[in-house]
């Protein structure tokens, strides 16, 4: 007691000076933090790179170049009989309409006093998208009374002209391009100055059907969005009940023996099976054995259900396990049956986890491409599927497959389209994740 220093452990120095060992430990901690920060920085940089590349390539696909024309719907060409019978009028093909549109464009150019040296008639007619005639024809067939009138129409410009306005096509590249001539670009400049050629929001990209190689300007995502939506409906209505029922049984009721262990191991393994294997399975079973149609959302949905089930089962079981056993005891203690304790107490508490797992599984399924290629969803589909339930059996595309499809095409206009489709896909995924977070917050309860 008299000599305080005598009690001091010689291994410990004064508090105010750090010894070598402490310095080493502090340095190790600082290094570890730095590693973490570097890892996060790399991740963020990769994300920014990805988003900028997708957005810079794809955002332009939401705007499209249109021609504003006054088309005289000549009765002699469109309806010789003059009785406005739609069945008879259908005999006039798009070629007839195309000529009318060309004529109206010619006269618009003359009217506005635009002159470009060496401009041929073909140059002028090629300014218009091949899709334009079909558009006007559909409009007239829907409303035969328009025949004989002069109506204002907004038609798509050719993909190359659109590319010129977006900077993809230049004078230099046009000289080497057999599909577009520099004269057309000059004409486009002049028409733009006169307000005949305008860029505006492209609803057709979101609602329209896919288009052929020759008319990238008309290609849309409509069928792919519907197909993906139908598949998600199939997956949700099959995978959620089957997955939740299987998890509840395995977690709460099943005896623990070799057989259930085997099932458990297999479910974990299934989650890791490459998705293309599920595609082969779907092709073999749903199409070849069960005889379901190819390219149909029902088959895609079934295949994606098989793929999503392990994810849902694993996350649901984790959510059930996370419910404290005291709640089960409490329910059993007042005489609830096992079923009642699960339905009244365990399941509501596990709900946020189950929903989050389900939506993450769905998001995974939404972005899945490989299995869909094998069951024919890669086909070129021009007709919109019908409303459900019949629509589930009609051919359709899917968003990720559409991206894959468009990247395969030669015309550079499809690169922009593919990036645009990726943006749409990302928006859907973000929306689903936002729903997952919202549901989690809403159902989360403390205990």
């Amino acid at each position: 007691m008299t000599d305080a220093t005598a009690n001091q452990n010689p291994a410990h120095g004064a508090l105010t000076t750090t010894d070598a060992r402490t310095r080493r430990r502090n340095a190790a901690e600082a290094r570890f933090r730095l590693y973490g920060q570097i890892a996060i920085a790399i991740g963020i940089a990769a994300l920014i790179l990805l988003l900028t590349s997708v957005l810079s390539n794809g955002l332009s696909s939401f705007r499209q170049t249109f021609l504003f024309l006054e088309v005289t719907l000549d009765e002699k060409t469109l309806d010789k009989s003059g009785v406005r019978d739609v069945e008879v009028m259908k005999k006039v093909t798009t070629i007839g309409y195309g000529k009318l549109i060309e004529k109206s464009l010619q006269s618009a150019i003359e009217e506005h006093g635009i002159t470009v040296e060496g401009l041929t008639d073909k140059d002028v007619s090629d300014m218009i998208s091949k899709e334009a005639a079909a558009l006007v024809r559909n409009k007239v067939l829907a409303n035969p009374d328009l025949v004989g009138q002069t109506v204002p129409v907004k038609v798509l410009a050719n993909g190359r002209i659109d590319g010129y306005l977006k900077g993809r096509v230049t004078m230099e590249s046009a000289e080497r391009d057999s599909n577009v001539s520099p004269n057309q670009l000059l004409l486009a400049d002049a028409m733009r100055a006169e307000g005949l050629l305008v860029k505006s929001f492209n609803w057709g990209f979101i609602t329209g059907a896919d288009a052929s190689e020759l008319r990238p300007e008309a290609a849309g995502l409509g069928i792919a969005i519907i197909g993906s939506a139908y598949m998600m409906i199939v997956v949700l209505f099959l995978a959620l009940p089957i997955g939740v029922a299987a998890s509840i049984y395995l977690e709460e009721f099943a005896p623990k023996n070799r057989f259930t262990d085997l099932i458990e191991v297999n479910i974990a393994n299934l989650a890791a099976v490459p998705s293309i294997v599920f595609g082969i399975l779907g092709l073999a079973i749903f199409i070849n054995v069960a005889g379901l149609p190819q390219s149909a959302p029902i088959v895609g949905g079934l295949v994606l259900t098989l793929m999503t089930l392990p994810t849902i089962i694993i996350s649901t079981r984790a959510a059930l396990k996370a419910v404290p056993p005291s709640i089960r005891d409490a329910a059993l203690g007042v005489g609830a049956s096992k079923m009642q304790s699960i339905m009244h107490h365990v399941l509501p508490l596990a709900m946020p986890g189950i929903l989050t797992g389900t939506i993450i599984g769905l998001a995974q399924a939404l972005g899945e491409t490989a299995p869909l290629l094998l069951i024919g969803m890669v086909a070129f589909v021009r007709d919109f599927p019908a409303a459900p339930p019949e629509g589930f059996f009609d051919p359709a595309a899917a968003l990720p497959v559409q991206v894959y499809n468009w990247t395969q095409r030669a015309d550079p206009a499809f690169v922009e389209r593919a990036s645009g489709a990726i943006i749409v896909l990302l928006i859907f995924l973000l929306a689903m994740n936002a729903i997952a977070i919202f549901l989690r917050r809403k159902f989360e309860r403390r205990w």
Partner: protein
Amino acid sequence: MNDMRLTEKSVEANDTKISARGVQVYYGDTHAIKDVDVDIADQTVTAFIGPSGCGKSTFLRCLNRMNDTIDVCRVEGNIKLDGDDIYDKRVDPVQLRAKVGMVFQKPNPFPKSIYDNVAYGPRIHGLTRSKAELDEVVEKSLRRAALWNEVKDRLQAPGTGLSGGQQQRLCIARAVATSPEVLLMDEPCSALDPIATAQVEELIDELRSRFAVIIVTHSMQQAARVSQRTAFFHLGNLVEFGETGQIFTNPSDPRTESYITGRIG
């Protein structure tokens, strides 16, 4: 140990409510309860004491077949409630648990309103015919659990928002709402502060007028304060069972004496 009121307590000769004969419990290969014979009297508080892991909670959980939920657990022997074997094949544990209520070590109210917590038992057993009747049961149960005055203005508030002691009394209210005949309490005060403990102990004494109460406790003082009969468990054996006063003042087994004087446990 001198200030205890146990000598003043009269132990009436009540009817036997539960009688256990030759009870053996196995957890897999572990022999957790070895040949226990006990008679639990009606309208009496019986305390199970003993060191940790001695099997007192295990034995308690045999009495309402809560051990059924543990896969590896096996119960042998004979436990009779009012003369009926509760391990008979025809007995549904759900019906048994409505008769034998249970309060757990950790307060475990459902994450629902106070009202729904208490009303849950009567609802699933169909004990009430109308909302008014249910309201009455809820009020009566909360009054019996000495909680009514504190929560009557916020019955729709979540049960998990109450303090620890209130939560435990809510759990007691939930257990008595199904009008059980026996109330099992597994260390009901171990998570509570001394004031809440005193409230719960007072409550246990009141509950005795209606039920047979069995309480597992680590605190010998608590056993001495609340119980009329005490059973001492050690390493799965029932060492001594008798009137509380006698166990604490004049134990017949040397192990009991060692435990209550603090030499083992």
